[in-house]
């Protein structure tokens, strides 16, 4: 392995790690806020827990989307290019 190939591998790994790590920040904050609000609503109205849990999971899955995009980009960097 010559030095050019090594540099390319290093760039790939650092790039994939950064893409996943930075991309997870937004999704993490979003899901945390959704969970906090759902907990608050559940504490206020315990009889609505069933409905709120379903809605919370749906909203979580949508907030997760940006994290999933960065996962796709990281896989593309690692496996495709």
């Amino acid at each position: 392995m010559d030095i050019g190939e090594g540099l390319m591998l290093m760039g790939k790994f650092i790039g994939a790690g950064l893409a996943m790590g930075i991309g997870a920040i937004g999704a993490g904050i979003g899901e945390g806020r959704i969970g906090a609000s759902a907990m608050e609503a559940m504490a206020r109205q315990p009889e609505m827990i069933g409905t709120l849990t379903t809605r919370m999971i749906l909203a979580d899955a949508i907030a997760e989307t940006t994290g999933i995009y960065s996962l796709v980009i990281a896989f593309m960097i690692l496996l495709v290019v």
Partner: protein
Amino acid sequence: MKLNLTKSDKIFLGVVFGGYVAVIIYIVATGYKFQLEGVGQRWIYQMPFGEGPLSRINPLTIIMTWVVMGIVIFMATRVKVFKLVPGKKQSLLEALLDYIYDLVKDSVSRKEFVRPIFDIAASLFLFVIVSNFIGSFPGINAIPLESGGVKFTILSDSWYAPTSDLNMNLMLAFFVFVMSHVYAIKVKGWKSWGKSFFEPIWWMFPINIIGEIAKPLSHALRLFGNIMGGSILILILGYLVKYFVLPAALWGIFGLFFGAIQALIFTILAIAYISSLIE
């Protein structure tokens, strides 16, 4: 909660659990070598003619798509006769379709479009959920080799879910995109449909076009990333623990739980994209 299991339920659960134990015994006994070669690689077949984009096909996607369609049609034939007092399968299906019908009825304002949009949404939901569930059971998979051949592996990976191929998801999302604009033309007429691209001011036209193109792209990438990311994650974690206990739990979480949620979200977004254009 008290579970009332009939004898056939117990037999079914026993068969599932026994099958899992048999898979573990098979893997341990044959000393299968776990390797990470071919992760994220696809088996691509080059047709003998031409060099264009249509000359390369993904055979596993085509085969598994037909398998999924066969399963859906088989399910449809089993509950064909709708009785007044529903049985087990019929009540499950009725509850599922009733939920989607309520979703469509709540978001579509025009009464005459509720039924066709429900047909589209329910068929999308059934196809996507069955193909996500297929990706949660261990089965046969094909891995391309460096030399150009193909190696078939048994029980080292789950069945290939058709939704973990971006082409499939893009096709489904493009179908929703085309149908939404067909309904928009039908409701508004050609003139006011064309005018809707110049909505606030005429120079917003490129931004409106980009917004319309981004819809099917994000729609497809959301499903693709979840299913393919899940399958690769299961492979890597299963490689760490040598497939003993963890993959079953992961297959349950990623295939069944996330698969059901993502199928539901795919359907909800399809309903939202179609109904937002026929307001």
